[in-house]
C-alpha cells in the first residue's frame, strides 16, 4: 500500500499533536468543535459514513474533497442545516445538538453560504445587521421601535475597517452595486463580526477573480488573527495550501485523512482526495 505519510509523523501545528489527531483520539475538551461518528443517509445514498472532524482553537481548517465526497453534508450536519442520523457534536467539550441553523448561530457559529444570503437592494450596514438589528436607546427604541441606523452604520464601518476591507467605504451603498469580491467581503465581515466560536466559509472564492480571491484569503487570515477558528470548504488547492493550517480530506462520505500544507504537496492531496493514494492511519 502506498503512503504519503512522512517518516517523522505530522509534528504539531499550533500546539496540536497531529499524530494524535490522525489516530482520531483528540479529546473534545481541547477542540472548539468535534464531530464524532456522524452518519447521514439520504434513502440509499450515504452522505456521511461515520465521519470525525476536529477544529482546534485559532486554526484554519480546510475541508477539501471531490464533488459528492460529503463536504457540504458534513458542514451542514455541524451547523444545524441538516440533522445527522447519528453521531455526536461537541463544542468546547460539551455535547451539543443543533436542530436549525439558528441554533448554531445562537451557539456562536456563523456560516457564509455560497449564495451569500444578502438582500441586494439593502445597503451594507442593513445587510451586516440583517436579523440582528439594533434599536435606538431610550423611548425612541423601546416605544417607537426605531432602528439605530447610525449606530449600525458606524459599527459596520468599524468591523469592515478592523478586517482591513478598504475596497468598500460607504456603508450606505446598496449591496447590488458592489462587485462579487466586495459582496463576499460583506458576507464574510458579517460572519466574522457575529461569530463567537468559529466561522464556516463555503467556497468563498469560487466565483472570484485572482485579485479578489487574494483579498478574500487575506480576510480569512484576518479572522484567524482575531482568534477565531475558520472552516474553509474549497475546491481550490492553491488557495487551501496558501491559508490552511490543516486540511481535512473528505472522500466517499468519510475522511481520507487530515494533512497539513507542510506534510503534503497539493498533488499528493489531490491523489488522496481522488483515491489514487491512501493515507496510512495510526
Amino acid at each position: 500500500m502506498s503512503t504519503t505519510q512522512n517518516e517523522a509523523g505530522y509534528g504539531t501545528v499550533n500546539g496540536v499533536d497531529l499524530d494524535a489527531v490522525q489516530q482520531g483520539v483528540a479529546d473534545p475538551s481541547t477542540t472548539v468543535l468535534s464531530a464524532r461518528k456522524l452518519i447521514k443517509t439520504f434513502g440509499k445514498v450515504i452522505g456521511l459514513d461515520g465521519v470525525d472532524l476536529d477544529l482546534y482553537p485559532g486554526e484554519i481548517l480546510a475541508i477539501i474533497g471531490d464533488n459528492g465526497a460529503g463536504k457540504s453534508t458534513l458542514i451542514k450536519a455541524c451547523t444545524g442545516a441538516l440533522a445527522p442520523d447519528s453521531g455526536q457534536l461537541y463544542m468546547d467539550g460539551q455535547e451539543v445538538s443543533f436542530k436549525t441553523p439558528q441554533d448554531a448561530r445562537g451557539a456562536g457559529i456563523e456560516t457564509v453560504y455560497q449564495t451569500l444570503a444578502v438582500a441586494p437592494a439593502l445597503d451594507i450596514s442593513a445587510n451586516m445587521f440583517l436579523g440582528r438589528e439594533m434599536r435606538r436607546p431610550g423611548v425612541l427604541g423601546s416605544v417607537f421601535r426605531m432602528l439605530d441606523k447610525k449606530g449600525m452604520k458606524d459599527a459596520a464601518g468599524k468591523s469592515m475597517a478592523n478586517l482591513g476591507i478598504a475596497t468598500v467605504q460607504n456603508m450606505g451603498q446598496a449591496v447590488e452595486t458592489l462587485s462579487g469580491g466586495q459582496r463576499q467581503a460583506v458576507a464574510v465581515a458579517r460572519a466574522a463580526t457575529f461569530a463567537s466560536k468559529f466561522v464556516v466559509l463555503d467556497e468563498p472564492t469560487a466565483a472570484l477573480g485572482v485579485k479578489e480571491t487574494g483579498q478574500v484569503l487575506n480576510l480569512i487570515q484576518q479572522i484567524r488573527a482575531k482568534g477565531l477558528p475558520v472552516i474553509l470548504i474549497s475546491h481550490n488547492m492553491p488557495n487551501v495550501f496558501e491559508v490552511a493550517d490543516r486540511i481535512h480530506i473528505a472522500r466517499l462520505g468519510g475522511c481520507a485523512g487530515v494533512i497539513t500544507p507542510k506534510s503534503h504537496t497539493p498533488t499528493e492531496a489531490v491523489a488522496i482526495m481522488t483515491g489514487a493514494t491512501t493515507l496510512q492511519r495510526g
Partner: protein
Amino acid sequence: MSTTTAPAQQPSTAAEQFALRRQSPAQRIQHVLHAQPALSPLLVLIVAIVVFSLVNPRFLQPQTLSILFQQVAIIAALAIGQTLIILTAGIDLSVGALTVFSMLIMASLASSGGVPGPLAILIGILVGTAGGLLNGYLVTRINLPPFIVTLGTLSIFLAAGLLYSGGSNIQSTALPDSVNWAGTVIQFGRFRITTGVIIVALMAIAVGFALSQTKWGRHVYAVGNDAEAARLVGIRVNRVLLSVYTVAGLLYGVTAWLQIGRAGSASPNALTEANLESITAVVIGGTSLFGGRGAIIGTMIGALIVYAFRLGLSLAGVDDQWRVFATGVLVIVAVAIDQWIRKVKS
C-alpha cells in the same frame, strides 16, 4: 504580514482606465433613481401640476385641490396595503372585494343589525383583518402563489359580501354618525379636508415609519429581496409574510369605514376598479413588482398622479378616455424605469 488592502491603485490596464471613465448623464440619472425611486414619480407629478394649472388656472385653487385629496384618499389608503404586499414580491387582487365585504358587514350591522356604531366599525375592521390573515395563511402555509390566492379570495369576498347584503345599498341616513364620521368636513382656510383624508395621511405616515424605521420594515424588504437569504440570516419569513397580509387586511378594514363616509353609502357596487387602481398607484410610485424596493411615499405620489391626471384632464375639457390612456402609458413607463434602475452597476 501586511493586512490592509492596498489603497486604490492607479489604473494600469486599458480596461481599468475604461472602468474609471466618467459616467454618462444617463448612468448618473440611473444612480440617482436607484437611490431614490420616488424621484421620477415626483417629477411627473410636478410636471403634471404645472401643465394642468397652465391649461386651467382653477386646477391649483384650494377648492380643486380639496376635491383632489378627497377623491384620491380611498385608493391611496388601499394602495398602502397593496404596497406592503408588493414589497414582499406578492400582489393582492382581493383588495377591493375585501374592502367592500368589510364595508357591507359594518353598514348592515350598524343599520338593520342594531349594533352600536363603534362596535359595528370594529367588527368590520376585524373582518378585513381576518380576510388579510386568510390570504396570508394560504400564501405561507399552503404555499400558493399570492396571485392565485387573491384571485380566489377576490371572488370569495365579493360573493360573501353580496350574499350577506342581498345586493342592497345602505344609505348614510340609515347609519349612525360614527359610521359616517369619515365624511366630516374640516375647514383649513379655503381648503375643505375631510376627516377621512386626515386618517389616510396618518395611515401612510404610520406604515411609512414602520417600513423605514423599524426592524419589521427592514425584514419586509429583506423577504421581498430574497426570501431564501432572509431565511438563512434567521428572519422568520412566513411570519413576516403573514404579518404583511394581516396588516394589509386591517388597513382595508379601516378604509371600508372611510369609504362609507366618502360615498355617503355602503354599496356592493363600490370600488370595482380598486384592484387595478391600487396596483397602478404602487407601480407608478416606483415600487418594484419584483419586490424588495419601493416606499409608501412613492405610492402616495403615484395615487396623486392618477387622480391629478383625472381631474386635470377633465378641467382641460379632454375626453376622460385620455386619462385612462395616460394612466396606461405611465404604468408601462414606470415598470420600464424600474427594470432599468435595477440593472445599476457600481
